[in-house]
């Protein structure tokens, strides 16, 4: 599914002294099957933006087209249908768990979709496996007796079980240990390659964004600063730094190396690519 955002603006508490313009005239297109990263300073409007993509927030002006269809022109029931296709994993999704067992909780989404018992069961098994948990060991446990990392996975599984064609994740690795981060990101990546779904990932980690996405959307104070490939975005170091962001650490390293070895490339943002380039220059 492609998602087209057209002149989108959103103002919170319009007309009160707490009025806040969170988004200002945003226009971008997310192609079908692409992997988009969104970066921006805290309060830049990232979370507000993604909540428009499945109609949880209504824009002050502008609109969103999903597969060419204006989602704010449709009926309420269609909007609910839309949410089956555009899955949104909120920040700290473990705070939304409520059922008695993990199996029931993950099955909440598919049940709302009106699927049959068999199909729900199958989807629950699949999505729990997808997030790297053992279905038989965990299905009858209460979600509240799990560890933080496991709860996070169960909550993500709850959205995956709806089999969305667009998956939006708001900082899915915030507050996890390094291993948990790696695993969850790897699972998202493999989900993207296996099922060809469109993924939108909001993150504060330039490293994660740099190595995973096709295109980066940089927003600052509700406005688009860049929407381009990591290659191009990460060369704009001074602009990124001026809005409180940074480039991956390895890019800084490459810049310093360039002072000594002028032939080295500096548009590098993953450790693997850096290793290759350094070896090439040393041997070369």
């Amino acid at each position, binding site marked *: 599914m492609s998602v087209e955002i057209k002149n989108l603006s959103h103002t919170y*508490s319009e007309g*009160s*002294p707490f009025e806040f313009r969170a988004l200002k005239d945003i226009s971008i297109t997310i192609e079908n099957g692409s992997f988009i990263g969104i970066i921006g300073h805290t309060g830049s409007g990232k979370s507000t933006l993604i*909540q428009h993509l*499945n109609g*949880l927030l209504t824009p002050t002006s502008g609109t969103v087209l999903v597969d060419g269809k204006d989602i704010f022109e449709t009926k*309420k*029931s269609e909007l*609910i249908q839309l*949410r*089956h296709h555009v*899955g*949104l*994993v*909120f920040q700290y*999704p473990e*705070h*939304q*768990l*409520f059922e008695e067992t993990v199996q029931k909780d993950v099955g*909440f*989404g598919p049940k*709302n*979709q009106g699927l049959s018992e068999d199909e729900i069961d199958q989807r629950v098994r699949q999505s729990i496996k997808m997030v790297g948990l053992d279905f038989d060991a965990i299905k009858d446990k209460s979600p*509240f007796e799990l560890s933080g990392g496991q709860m996070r996975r169960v909550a993500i599984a*709850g*959205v995956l079980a*709806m089999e969305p064609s667009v998956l939006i994740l708001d900082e899915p690795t915030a507050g996890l240990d390094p291993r948990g981060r790696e695993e969850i990101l790897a699972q998202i990546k493999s989900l993207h390659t296996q099922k060809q779904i469109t993924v939108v990932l909001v993150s504060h980690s330039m490293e994660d964004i740099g190595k995973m996405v096709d295109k980066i959307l940089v927003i600052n104070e509700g406005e688009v600063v860049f929407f381009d490939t990591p290659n191009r975005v990460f060369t704009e170091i001074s602009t990124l730094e001026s809005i409180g962001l940074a480039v991956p650490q390895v890019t800084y390293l490459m810049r310093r190396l360039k002072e000594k070895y002028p032939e080295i490339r500096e548009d590098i943002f993953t450790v693997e690519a850096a290793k290759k380039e350094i070896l090439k220059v040393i041997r070369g």
Partner: protein
Amino acid sequence: MLKDVTIGQYYPTGSVIHKLDPRTKILFTTAFVVMLFFLNNLWGYLATFLILATITLLSKIPVGYIIRGIKGLVLIIMLTVVLNLFMTPGTTIATLGPLSVTLEGLKVATYMALRLIFLVVGTSIMTLTTSPIDLTDGMEWCMRFIPFVRRYAHELAMMMSIALRFIPTLMEETERIMKAQKARGANFETGSIISRAKNLIPILIPLFISAFRRADELATAMEARCYRGGENRTRMKQLAFEFRDHASLVLMVMMIVGLYLTTMINIPLGFPI
């Protein structure tokens, strides 16, 4: 939806009313509310209206914002008006099927409606112009004059400020959880009452869990900073009456006397009885 609730909200404008000592405002509001129940003719209501209008203008809060606060009470006001209009015995001035409107009923209904509106507007001006922290500080001071309650004044005030502090947090949390469950296909807008009530479970359980967690964390944080309420506790911000407070208290006495005097006016205004 939840954002439309204006009662109890703070609306900063930095006006002279905002700068008044919270104790002054609490006393003034109490006197105002008590006086409302003494009024017995339209002269009194007219005077009250003028007092309220002056205070509202001084507070610089948009009138529309205050009126929005009354909207939630329209139902209660309407109910009071209708009941009083038809249920009061007296001289009939109009009939509507088996029901009859009496002159006395019309009078009582008008007074009741005005009283309710003035009550809500008067008290909401206090909360709109006083930050929750100031308000509880003022309450704590006022509670020292009530026997029995006096001993627990600090604890009660602390409980009140924590409760006030958590209203917006819990509202935000509710909205977030609602959105998260909506994103999983939950439907809160349509269906029968029973199915809607059932749909609340996915909101209420996470909300309770988070409220307990927050309470627990706050208690730990307070303990970690050696909080001990009550005796010998000093404050960083001391309340102090200033000239404007003294002036307001003089005005308050004048208001009480003035409104009391209106009850003795015998010149009819509006109702011939």
